[in-house]
């Protein structure tokens, strides 16, 4: 592995796992996801344009690895009407709210989740998010709208359950 990539991985590993956790909703899966993406980056290293700052390339690889992972496992996943564990949070606490949001985010389809993570964690523009995901700006707009609508609905249900 190139020394620059090694330094990047050693320095950013916790941050990357955190990023992947936001994308896939599972800490154990996240570590696997980051490894998968970084293996890909290692093999593609000669083509990484900004070798001194490969963060954008690595994150893009993580996003695509997560979408591919979902494609492989989706046949094993069963959709459910309600989320497990919803309704146990302390609504007076903002920390609890954030935790509930993360769990609600994890219930979204991976592509929708990826759009929200790119837009609200990476603060990407709609155009940049579209470039990363290989789709149109219109798709980003619609997926953002649908994702936020679902989050609101989940929260509304959560409050009813309180």
């Amino acid at each position: 592995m190139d020394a620059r990539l090694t330094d990047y991985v050693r320095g950013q590993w916790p941050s990357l796992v955190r990023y992947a956790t936001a994308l896939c909703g599972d800490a154990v899966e996240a570590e696997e996801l980051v490894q998968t993406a970084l293996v890909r980056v290692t093999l593609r290293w000669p083509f990484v344009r900004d070798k001194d700052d490969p963060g954008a390339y690595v994150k893009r690889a993580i996003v695509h690895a997560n979408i591919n992972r979902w494609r492989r496992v989706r046949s094993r996943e069963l959709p459910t009407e309600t989320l497990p564990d919803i309704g146990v949070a302390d609504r007076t606490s903002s920390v609890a709210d954030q935790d509930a949001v993360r769990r609600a985010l994890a219930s979204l389809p991976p592509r929708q989740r990826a759009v929200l993570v790119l837009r609200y964690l990476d603060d990407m523009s709609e155009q940049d998010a579209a470039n990363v995901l290989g789709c149109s700006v219109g798709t980003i707009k619609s997926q953002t709208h649908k994702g936020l609508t679902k989050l609101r609905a989940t929260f509304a249900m959560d409050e009813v359950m309180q």
Partner: protein
Amino acid sequence: MNDIEQLLRDSLHSTPTPPGRLTDPVASIERRARRARAFIAGAAVAVAAVLTAAIVVPLSMLQGTAAPATGGVLGQPTPVPPSGQPQVWFTGGSVAMTSGGGSLWHLHRTPSTTKPGLEVDRVDPATHDVERTWDVQEPADFIAYGLGMAWVWGGGDGGYPDGLLQAVDPTGTKSWSNSGKAFNGVAFLAGKAWATTGSQVWVVDGTHGSESSGVVVLPGATTQNGIVATQSGELWVRAGKSWVRIDPTTDRVVDTVHWEGPMFGAAGGAQVWTSDGSRLVAITPRFLHQGQSLALGTRVVTRGLVEAVAPSSDGGLFLVAVDGADPENDPMNLYYLSPHALAAGNPAIDDGTPHVADVTAYQLAPDDRGGVDYTDGDAGTRWMP
């Protein structure tokens, strides 16, 4: 910004760092990258083996008779390398290579550090002189030769949203690229090119690169380079837990057998090299209907997982296999089994088997003089056992 957006933003930015299981992620990634290169090599060599069987070497290895060298002779003086010693002839970014049409076809990164890219070289297999070079686009991981052209494909695997299939025409009249589909394997039979993606097989027009309407839907997902044309003219595709035979004239599935093993390329006649765990096996897929005892031919006992197989022009066999039971940590070697060893019945890899140690071979491209060219992801090397 409304409440849910702000809450989402706050939530994402305050995601706690999960406790890590890995003590050394860099070591783990490097190990997996080495394995990934080896996996690509193992898969890619299936194509090389198909081409070699179909174009260069009429295999009779299973009978232990020497196969005549019939193709690819350029009439150049042949330097004789020291026997048994691998010779590096290219450094600095070899990606994949195959043989066909009398040449060695070498996919590699451009030497330029300011303008990274990929090139395909047509190489004299005897002297390793570069005869001509073509630019190709990334992503590109595999190369094969068929229908008079060099075919290159890659992508669709996480680093890129889409795949790319390209062909380089040595005559310069019909080079093309086809983007959008993540093709993962290509084979050539009956004057057609067959490419797999997802759970489908397409016939690809060699003149323009477009997929024809002759798509075949399979009962399961294809795997990387899980498509083989046998020397007897059968086309087999690995689909999930089955191998499926496609009639090249009607483009339809005509047979399905249960076999989960990988495909390592044609093994002569109607046989395909595969693995049943600890052994490399030549199998006649359609005989599986009548039982494994009838379907299984030559079996080579190995010390670990087989990654790549290619026939030698003298009737022997080259294979890359892990030297031990731990595929994550044990090294891989490049072995040569002579026609005599193969004819002895159920041969085994042991300390006396001629080999090059620690070869994480990226692809095998046997020549017609008993040698083999390969890449380990960086250097291009030739070995004459």
